């Protein structure tokens, strides 16, 4: 497809259609994970609508971006909380 974009999830390249939510790109890269909770549990996309914040990841150096609400753009670098 001509409107695919290449993004990097924890350094791994993954190709997705432009406009794909970041959380979906993570899942397609085999890492359907979001933030680490207050007690250190790994959390995952839950509400899918920008409310719960469980899908938060770092996008191009900006922390706490909502994976379900941010669309993938060419070259985006997505990193999850280290756990």
């Amino acid at each position, binding site marked *: 497809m001509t*409107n695919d974009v290449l993004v990097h999830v924890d350094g791994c390249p993954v190709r*997705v*259609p*432009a*406009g*794909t*939510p970041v*959380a*979906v790109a993570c*899942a*397609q890269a085999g890492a*359907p*994970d979001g933030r680490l*909770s*207050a*007690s250190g*549990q*790994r*959390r*995952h*996309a*839950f*509400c*899918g*609508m*920008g*409310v*719960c*914040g*469980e899908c*938060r990841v770092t*996008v191009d150096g*900006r*922390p*706490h*971006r909502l994976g*379900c*609400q*941010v*669309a993938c753009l060419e070259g985006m670098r997505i990193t999850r909380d280290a756990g």
Partner: protein
Amino acid sequence: MNAPREFMNLIGEPADLATDVAVIGAGPAGLAAAEAAATAGVRVALLDAAPVAGGNVWRARAATPDTEVAPRLRRLAGLGVVVMPGTRVVWPQPDGTLLLERDGSPATLRAKRIVLATGARERLLPFPGWTRRGVFGAGGLQALAKGGWPVQGRRVLVAGTGPLLLAAAATLRRAGAHVIEVAFEAETATLAGFAMRLAAFPARALDALTLRASLAGVPVRGGWRIVEAQGVDAADPASPLAQVTLARANGRTRTLEVDDLAVSWGLVPQVELAESLGCALAWRGHERHVVVDTDQRTTRADVFAAGEQGGVAGAAAALASGAIAGRAAAHDLIADAQTDPPVDLHDRQRRDRAARFAALVAATFPPPADLAARWRDDTLVCRCEDVAWSAVRAFDTPREAKMATRCGMGHCQGRTCGEALRLAGCASPASLPARPVRAPIVPVPLSHVLALPAEAESDDAPARAH
């Protein structure tokens, strides 16, 4: 995906923007409001937190963005409406400036009139195991699947209450999921009674029949509630979902092997922005909504509210109330204040008919009355801050619980646990403070707030910033 590309083409105006009417939310209500106001001849900006327009209802339904949203966006572009996806209102200032977060950066917007069309979120209630990987809001998984979340071949159980469970199940099945069952808390007799009463709403009856047909072969059972979502590793509370145990009122249980669990207990109007703007709110049963008059004007003269803001009533009502609000907001700015806004009786009839249907849905599918009895000591009632039920149940008021445990003080700012604890009987509506919402309405880096011009700062201190 045509819609996102089309949407992105509209980006490019300056970070500090002034307009006549700001419409907050680009679902059915916001799209209709923006079009009605712009058609009347005023400048309009349309904001939405999501990267694509359509709101949760049109985003979640398969195949609709191209047929419903794209033509509307084209008309808005023709009318000169500034469309701002990926934009959240963070903090309304006393002078009328709205502090925004746009694609992760601060921006401001001044508007003479505001139309709130921020929709509703799912009522997501705690149960043991609800933080595991594989547990989702039903509408949330619907929206994620639409965006490409991998559900193909996965065994999905859809459970909770409300007619949206069927819509979620149908979308997931279309996306390739193996929907093993739709489990309603409402008893089978209640579901049958609801189906009978649908006859009074032919369009809804047709929707329901179409949905049921698309779920042919999927068992739909009444009278079952979720007991627990078990993980692959019984000893690890964070291990991914493997099984779900359901129970009947008589205590009978059964356990299903699943990959994903999609849950929902109806919708909750997202009234935080209205509340922070000082608009009056009211309760109707379990639903807190924005008080509006017949023109959709709130108790604040320069703020209108449309769609689910005035009470959950669905997309048809949202299109009607959005159009009414957009016309009325524009009328304020172009006409003598003594004249009434133009009346479209068709929109009013559509809006009021949908409200009657919504009342039937609310009466048929109430949220659980025994919620607290379903929780164990270690059930996390606040998943933002990992606060267990045992830690909060001793407190009399939400405020005391917050002060001692941080319950409700995490990222979602109490949007999830606040509703759950209210339903569990921990706080009656009367005991809630008049204005519990404090800016920023959504968590943002402190640098966003520092970006505000000095004269626009208010006295309220930020509740929390990362």
